[in-house]
């Protein structure tokens, strides 16, 4: 029996087989969509670049060489050099680490936080719901970039603070989504059934409700990535994220502004990197929505 037949069988013989089969079906559906595949490739490229940066970068990203300032792209410098003679290609490669760090840290904070607040508010209802939702409203009332700026300015520059600032402004919609899903799910028969079995509230929230809300949160996260990356770039642009000489893409675009007309590559190359990764997450998010939603309905 081939592997795929074993995975797709209608009568799995163990928990592991059932779970793997499910995952396999999701994966093949995901990959069958060409646009999603492109998105996945773009995102993976960034991950690969970040992980294998020391081997992929052709030169030291911090090495300055005033004799080689502002050189156009060539075989020596694939993306040219910047105003301090540093190789832009290597800086873009190493910059992916910063972007990846920010994106992963924000996702890891925001997803679970929003999920917990949303499911608890949605399931318990009443006063708990009101309090939690008003707190959410307060955070949502501020324009994201402005609030991120305020926090970054108050906490001081640096990547960690940038991550905190972005996370604080990003979590409210996730709580809202999780709460909306929870309210719908609470009315379903399978939740009534588990309540009638005598399950505790925490068991229901963790084992029954949260797993069904995760899809919406994940989809929203992937689609939000582009926004998160741009805010991080925005903070970097304004000098509030990673500090020089760190090769943060937003900061690179900012310094490249001054040379935009004659030495366009200094700002454009990191700009393209930001664009590609944002696009990748968007395409991936769309594809994820297609596979995660129908199963639920």
């Amino acid at each position, binding site marked *: 029996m081939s592997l795929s037949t074993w995975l*797709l069988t209608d009568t799995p013989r163990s928990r592991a087989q059932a779970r793997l089969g499910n995952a396999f079906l999701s994966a*093949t*559906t995901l990959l*069958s969509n060409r646009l999603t595949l492109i998105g996945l490739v773009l995102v993976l490229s960034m991950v690969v670049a970040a992980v294998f940066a020391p081997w992929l970068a052709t030169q030291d990203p911090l090495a300055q060489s005033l004799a080689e300032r502002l050189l156009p792209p060539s075989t020596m410098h694939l993306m040219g050099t910047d105003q301090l003679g540093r190789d832009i290609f290597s800086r873009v490669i190493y910059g992916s680490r910063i972007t990846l760090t920010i994106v992963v840290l924000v996702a890891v904070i925001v997803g679970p936080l929003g999920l917990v607040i949303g499911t608890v508010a949605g399931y318990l209802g009443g006063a708990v719901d009101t309090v939690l939702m008003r707190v959410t409203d307060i955070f949502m009332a501020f324009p994201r970039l402005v609030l991120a700026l305020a926090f970054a300015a108050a906490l001081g520059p640096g990547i960690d603070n940038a991550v905190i600032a972005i996370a604080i402004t990003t979590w409210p919609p996730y709580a809202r989504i999780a709460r909306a899903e929870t309210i719908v799910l609470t009315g379903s028969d399978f939740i009534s059934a588990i309540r009638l079995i005598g399950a505790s509230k925490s068991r229901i929230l963790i084992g029954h409700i949260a797993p069904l809300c995760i899809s919406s949160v994940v989809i929203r996260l992937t689609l939000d990535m582009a926004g998160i990356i741009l805010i991080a770039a925005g903070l970097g642009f304004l000098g509030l994220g990673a500090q020089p000489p760190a090769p943060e893409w937003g900061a690179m675009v900012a310094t490249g502004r001054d040379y935009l007309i004659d030495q366009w590559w200094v700002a454009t190359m990191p700009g393209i990197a930001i664009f590609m990764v944002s696009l990748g997450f968007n395409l991936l998010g769309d594809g994820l929505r297609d596979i995660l939603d129908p199963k639920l309905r």
Partner: protein
Amino acid sequence: MTGPLLHIEDLHVDFHSRKGETNAVRGVSWQMGREKLGIVGESGSGKSLSVRALLGLVRPPGEVRARRLELDGVDLRALSARQWQSIRGRRISMVLQDPRYSLNPVMRIGDQIAEAYLAHHDVSHGEAQARALDMLAAVHIRDPERVARAYQHELSGGMGQRAMIAMMLMPEPEILIADEPTSALDISVQTQVLSIIDEMVTSRGMGLIFISHDLQLVASFCDRVLIMYGGRVVEERLAKELPTATHPYTRGLLACLPRLGERRESLAVLERDNAWSREVEAP
């Protein structure tokens, strides 16, 4: 009247998916005139799909093919979208199961019904609204003006279904398809809605295709009955001859129903025979 109104020969509906091909309708053939034809089957029998094929409502990955699929001489197999517009609603119309989901929730009832008329007749809005009110009265709604101004969620199930029938009859079609029209309604309302359908169909000389899972209901309401199983028609009978049906599936269906007046310890269970369809598709 003269020849059959609807002529279907060797209809197939197949679905192509990653897991393989599903043959939902497998070589179905039947004809009908201006009569009440009932199609009975369980889920997975293909009854709804075969009728949706008549309206060109089977979309990819579904594929429809037939040797003959004709409405009064018009070949329904290769119509363009434009041509379908002149068939759907105008010549064949369909009433669905639940008016909560088949009526537009953001339009007033009167507007929806008027729209159904305007789609096929070139008259003024005022005229269409007036005809809508007439139609609502024809389906025995006592206060047509109030219902015309109402939205779908303000109506009860029975009223909603009557509004749906009014809407579907506006363009004066030749055939009305009713797909489980009373399944979502309370029992006491079912009879009323059925009598309205009966009256409308008879007075206008229309053909009616009545799809249901309820064999008893169809037998008492229709003139002729088709029984479908596994994508095939397994029996075709006059309604009044149904109790003497011969096919084991039909007999099985009749036998496994609990009935008032018959005390039984356990109900007869349908023994599915693979011979009824070449491969039995799990529902």
